[in-house]
């Protein structure tokens, strides 16, 4: 039995505070849904928990079983049992999922014995075509394939806690069901603790949540049982904000600037004409 505990977490980008004191406590085997409107800080929370260094953590703590994770590099957080299924999984051309996972398992101090067999079994369970295992990671995957592949990685790496960042985006009904079932099985069989970040209540019709939290303006403004999601479904975020007396739904962040590229200067060819041969 493990506990992931987030206490009074504050984080900023370029001096703009996005998380303004988030508290959460998730135990093994529990599914917590974190819902919020666009710009409420949901994805920031996911990235800050995993240790992305674009964000400055200004206050608070994140622990697994009392051990502080803040300050650890990302890979050490992974080693401590944290997993992030990303909203937009990144393409890594030329790196096969099999090799990637093998390196990841070794990185966590494990031995990738029987990995091929396990992957094949998980692929079948998640309806991932086996050809995706030997292609470049996420390269030319559709949205649904990406999310199935994220879930497959989750199943193979067996973390203690998984953060699912908008795992339901880009999924059709069948894919959503496959993914949700697999995750649910992990929560019961392997006691996986889950923080499912989502915009829509749709995910929760497939993945049963023990607790639902509402994030607005960088704070958890309401927590409750699954019925909270139903309420939200009826009222919408604005309606709920009104009911709760919250005025700030999203956090303002200035847009990033496009980087500039210099024009390359051209040189003449440093070699001469080839001879006319034959």
């Amino acid at each position, binding site marked *: 039995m493990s506990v992931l505990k987030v206490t009074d977490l504050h984080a900023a980008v370029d001096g703009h505070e996005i998380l303004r004191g988030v508290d959460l406590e998730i135990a093994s085997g529990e599914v917590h849904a974190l819902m919020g409107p666009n710009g409420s800080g949901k994805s920031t929370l996911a990235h800050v928990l995993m240790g992305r260094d674009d964000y400055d953590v200004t206050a608070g703590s994140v622990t697994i079983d009392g051990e502080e994770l803040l300050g650890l590099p990302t890979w050490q957080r992974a080693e401590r049992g944290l997993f992030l299924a990303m909203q937009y999984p*990144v393409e890594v051309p*030329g790196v096969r999922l099999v090799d990637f*996972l093998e*390196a990841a398992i070794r990185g966590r101090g494990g031995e990738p014995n029987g990995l091929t067999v396990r992957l094949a079994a998980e692929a079948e369970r998640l309806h991932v075509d086996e050809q995706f295992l030997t292609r470049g990671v996420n390269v030319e995957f559709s949205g649904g394939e990406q999310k199935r592949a994220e879930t497959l990685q989750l199943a193979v790496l067996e973390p203690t806690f998984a953060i699912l960042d908008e795992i339901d985006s880009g999924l059709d009904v069948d894919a959503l069901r496959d993914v949700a079932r697999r995750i649910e099985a992990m929560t019961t069989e392997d006691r996986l603790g889950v923080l499912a970040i989502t915009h829509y209540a749709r995910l929760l019709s497939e993945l049963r949540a023990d607790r639902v939290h509402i994030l607005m303006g960088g704070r958890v403004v309401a927590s409750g049982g699954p019925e909270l999601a139903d309420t939200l479904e009826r009222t919408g975020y604005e309606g709920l904000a009104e009911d709760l007396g919250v005025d700030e739904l999203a956090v303002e962040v200035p847009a990033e600037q496009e980087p500039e590229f210099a024009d390359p200067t051209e040189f003449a060819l440093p070699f*001469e004409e080839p001879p006319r041969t034959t």
Partner: protein
Amino acid sequence: MAVEGIDLGKYKLGWNDADQYVYKPKKGVNEEVVRDISHQKSEPEWMTKFRLKALARFERKPMLDWFAQNMPDIDFDDIYYYIKPTEGGEVSDWDMLPEKMKETYEKLGIPEAERKYLSGVTSQYECLRGSTLVWTTEGMRPIKEIEPGDEVFSLDEASREIVRAPVRGKAASGDKEVFEIRARGRVIGASANHPFLVLRDERKPGRQRARFKARWVPVEGLREGDYVALATDVPEYGESAPLLLEWPDDPGFPIETSVDFCWFAGVYLGDGYIKHSESYATLEIAIDVSDEELVDEIRRVGRELFGLDFRLAKDRQRLTAIGSSALAEFFELNGLGGTAHTKRIPDWVSSLPVAQRLAFVAGYIDADGYVRDYPTNRDVSLTSANSSLLEDAKQLLALCGISSSSVIEFTSRHSLDRNRMMTGYRLQLSGRFDRIPCRSPRRTNRMGRRAFVHTNRSAKGTTFRSHTSDMLGFVRIDEIESVGVEPTYDIEVEGHHNFVAEGFVVHNSEVVYHKNRADLEKQGVLFSSMDHAVRDYPELVREHFATVIPPGDNKFAALNSATWSGGSFVYVPPDTHVEMPLQAYFRINSENAGQFERTLIIADEGASVHYVEGCSAPVYSSDSLHSAVVELIAKPGARIRYTTIQNWSPNVYNLVTKRARAETEATVEWIDGNIGSKLTMKYPAVVMTGPKAHGEVLSVAYAGEGMHQDAGAKMTHVAPETTSIIDSKSISKDGGRTTYRGLVKVEEGAHNVKSHVRCDALVLDEDSRSDTYPYMEVGEKDARIGHEATVSKVGEDQIFYLMSRGLTEQQATAMIVNGFIEPITKTLPMEYAVELSRLIELNMEGAVG
């Protein structure tokens, strides 16, 4: 993998080994020096003249601005142009390699077996996946569990008999891409370079009759439809095994195995079980009691061996004996216990003499087998709910010279309850099962009337009987498929250098190289140092030398032409295919071909060859200029692939002129890895002079701190319908700079030309730089030329993604870089792909750490 205790600190800086030379001419280049070089090498007069002419060109040619700008500190008068090496002759044995060179490999952290390969004195790794079952005199064992001293089976190629051979060594050969080869129900997983013995139809065009030749062909050279060698039988081995007894002083039961005992044990395995009651156990056998002969035989053996009187139970469905409790214990003690789902064939059965093994099989078939009775099919099959038991049986049968199908799963309705579905497994025997001494007439009658025996000694429409024997057969390959990377192993066998695994005859380590050499000679391929070639093959050399790159081509080609020494000469006769890549490592090193080597490769009409030049080996030089000339001539229909991986130390200017002539329908591919040097300027070129010729350049460049890789390609389309591809990948890091500079030129009259250029650059940090300068000169309007260029910064997104799965930043970067160059590395022989990746990783670490 890595050798312990390597000081990578030194490696970072490159290294200089103390020079040991017998003769050193003066520094600088002038007529006297050039004459001296030619004299030292006892060259014919034409070569001396050629050198002197080239010297004149060198002196006349101005230093181009570009070179001058980039090489401010080059001083042509401060260079030794020729140094006569101390080590003479060509090395053919690892132990003969100079110590200095061995040390170099040590520094690179290359394991010994691989070093041997790099030095060219032995074959590459050949490997099988860890679970591969090797046929041994102790039964079948996974290759990873084989130990030196174990006895395996090996093919004596002269007599075509399978013989016993001791294992001399075993090696874990690391993680390799594994290919599964399937042939008639047999599957084996091997690396791309693992040779198999195959039969190939090598009839001359137009001939009616197939002419089969037996050859060792690596997996990558195998084709579906080739016939691959199988061991169909093994020589007699094995001894009766002692049996374990509860009360050794008062046996009452046999103390060692016998034919009768084995038969009884086989029957028991098929239909017997132990029934445990509260106070005692009974051994019972549930057979078809209407088979009277079988019942009588079981009773006879039971009486004679165990002193027990087996009788029909009241329900008339089983045999049992009063007092069989001790026998039950005895069976359990000897590994024959278990239930229908957990029973296995005990290990000791595999090591018995063949008569006892066959008796065991016979008993099992008498109990549980079924012989079909169709006119065309009187095969024996075994059915069980226990697939492991059938796998055991399959292995045991193979060691009795009897082949069988893979274990097939099937489902059927339960015979008593139609609503229940059962899953069962079936093993289909084929081949020589008439040698199984079954005792039930119901089995033997049908088996005896079988029309055909499959021994894999012939195939429909072909005759290759002469290549087979009672122990050696060939079957057609059904499928070859890559199944991903797995840990792999290899063993080395004394004597015949092959062994039997999963039924296939496969090669073991060592000797492939020596065999190659002999093969090359037989094929009429000439492969020697350029210096020797000038003396040994004067006409061939004189006809082709400097016809692709004349001495006046550029200042550095002129310098090379005047002062060259070392390099390789290769001539491949018409229609000759050199299967294994020719390695340049060993000879270049032992000849100590300095900085001005000269290589000439000629593939005559319809010939093909892959030449690999590796420079990851020593940097003997303290000099700062390396300027080689490489000329390739692909005559009509020929194919040449030239692979280079250079890793010069960071004080070297590497200016190499490489050009190929591709005549009608010929193909030339340059594969170029530039990992080291201070400045490399290298633009491999293909001049396509005949219609439908094809040129290709695949290159990878890595530039770290203080390095500049200015590389690219040049494609000149002289003839119509010629095609070319340029694929360039560069990586820059820590202020390193990469440049792609390329030219595609379509001459007037060259109609319907197609060319595609693709350059991808990966820039790992803000300080590093990458530029792309593609040039096109197109003289015909119908040319189709494509160009794509991408520059990507290794995204923080990518690194974060990989790190979130548990990789460190360094591992993540290395993985991204390796993925980036994967399109190139996959075209390399395995060892070079590994080498290239490792060199880049080492370089990156060096800069990071």
